[in-house]
């Protein structure tokens, strides 16, 4: 199955960039012509452009949950996230971008989108390094992605 592993995050906002750190750790461990590894520091419509044409998408991203400590790794399906309207000030969500693409009758949309989320606390400070709790979650996230790829 043609698959893309996509790490999302901002490389200069500390823990927000954890998805990119996971990709760095994954690269040497994936050698499969059916699997593309990419990073993105952008939102909905641009992400849609990147995942078009793949059957399966594994997104790796920072998430924030009220009931979680930083550094937990969780697997979600895109459908776990309920749709909200476009109140994001400047971009649409990936869910919304996908809904739009479906409505326009686009083919070549992924049939399966999995999210590997690493919980973080908010950070308001610039920096390239992860906090220790979040850094220690990177190997777990790597293992989860590799596990996910076995079913590919």
């Amino acid at each position, binding site marked *: 199955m043609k698959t893309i592993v996509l790490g*999302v995050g901002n490389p200069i906002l500390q823990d927000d960039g954890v998805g990119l750190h996971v990709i760095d750790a994954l690269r040497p461990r994936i050698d499969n012509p059916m699997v593309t590894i990419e990073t993105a*520091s952008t*939102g909905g419509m641009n992400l849609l452009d990147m995942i078009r044409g793949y059957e399966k998408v594994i997104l790796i991203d920072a998430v924030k*949950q009220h009931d979680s400590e930083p550094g937990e790794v969780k697997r979600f399906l895109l459908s776990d996230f309920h749709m909200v309207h476009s109140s994001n000030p400047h971009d649409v969500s990936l869910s919304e971008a996908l809904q739009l693409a479906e409505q*326009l009758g686009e083919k070549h949309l992924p049939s399966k989108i999995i999210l590997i989320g690493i919980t973080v606390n908010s*950070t*308001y400070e610039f920096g390239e390094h992860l906090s220790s709790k979040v850094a220690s979650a990177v190997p777990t996230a790597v293992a989860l992605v590799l596990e996910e790829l076995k079913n590919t």
Partner: protein
Amino acid sequence: MKTITIDPITRLEGHGKINIFLNEHGDVENAYLQIPELRGFEKFSEGRRAEDMPQITSRICGVCPVAHHFAATKALDAAFHVDPPVTAKKLRELLYCGYLIYDHILHFYFLGGPDFVVGPEAPAAKRNILGVIEKTGVDVAKDVIKHRAYGQRITAILGGKATHPVCGLPGGVSKGLSKDEVKEIKDMVASCNIFAKFTLNLFDDIVLKNKAYVDLIRSDPYTLKTYNMGLVDKHNKVNFYDGLIRVTDQEGSQLEKFEGKEYTNHIAERVEEWSYMKYPYLKSIGWQGLTDGKKSGIYRVGPLGRLNASDGMATPQAEKEYKRMFDTLGGKPVNSTLAFHWARLIELLYATERAKELIEDADITSVHIRNPVGTPGEGIGVVEAARGTLIHHYHLDKNGLIMKANMIVATTNNAGAITMSVRNAAKGVIKKGQVTDGLLNKIEMAFRAYDPCFGCATHTLPGGLPMTVKIYDHQKKLYRTFSQP
């Protein structure tokens, strides 16, 4: 169905939080949009190689990477005492047009436009691109997607990479244009021009021919009489990439015009203890608090700020539309916040016309695209981001490393105006402690017009942004909370 609640993180987190304070009569005394500010940019930049700044700063924001990239590149031109070759400047400006095309299209059809196209009273769940498709049909939506992608493609061809350009260097750019690329860009630009005109017609049909909308645009809660600011060329026409910063007053007369490098003589920043935000204001006028009028130094930037601060557009089709907007809305300046949407579409048209001029320019395929740099020093770069004036300011040491860095981003320039617009919209819907329908919509419309962007985390989850409005009574006790998912 299982629902997971996840907050958008970092800077966006506080973005949707609005606090409203009532007086003892239950009327709005104050209101503000809470925006935590990102910290530590200066420290983060210290000791870095200056030529890395265009790449680093383009990561600050997932929306304005191109604007940050070129504000940084221009600051480096100045810091290294080098004037780029004419072709490099034209390539940069052409790339910039691509950015404006996709950014303005995204805002109108996905973000700001739905309030009008679907209707300000429509439920929140309908006021989005999907609601727009329902109303305008699938073909229009396909055109939206296509032309937004063209804008992206233009920036990718010239920038070397989609979304985050890597072409800007002190003294020029790293990549020229091939004949094939020229042909491809020409075709895309021609199509974008037709689409820009279509979009202005759509705005006419849906908004301007509807008296209720025009009344809303001109209504008091959405009116703000501030100064206006934007970059202009030597004929005082709007320019996004280069020029002087011009400020006009509430009558449309020029207050001041200065080079970007003089900005600290003209702009000061006020810190209010109750907010995270810094509020810039004009030094020559002074700070009078969050109030509009001639005595208050608060100004607006962005599409409406730019059109108000200029004498017109430098291309013929956009110039015609510029005149029509001011004629329709009662002359210059237009103080109606919702007119930002119209101004944005006029700029979209301009960007397509300007891109056509540039791609047809004989210089554009020249291979002379970089000049050698001089000794490092201090540099200031100013561009017009889609959402307003953006300033980067660096001090370099003798080895070309950053000693000090400062930025004023577009939304910060608009901070005072956004806060007042939110307050005025709240006043329109809250009277004597009674909250009328549409509170959230009406407040959201007020700040959305500015297309605000606060430098951001770029993660995808959950994507949308919950908005919460908290109303406090005169004893600062929480009175009511409204939120939409």
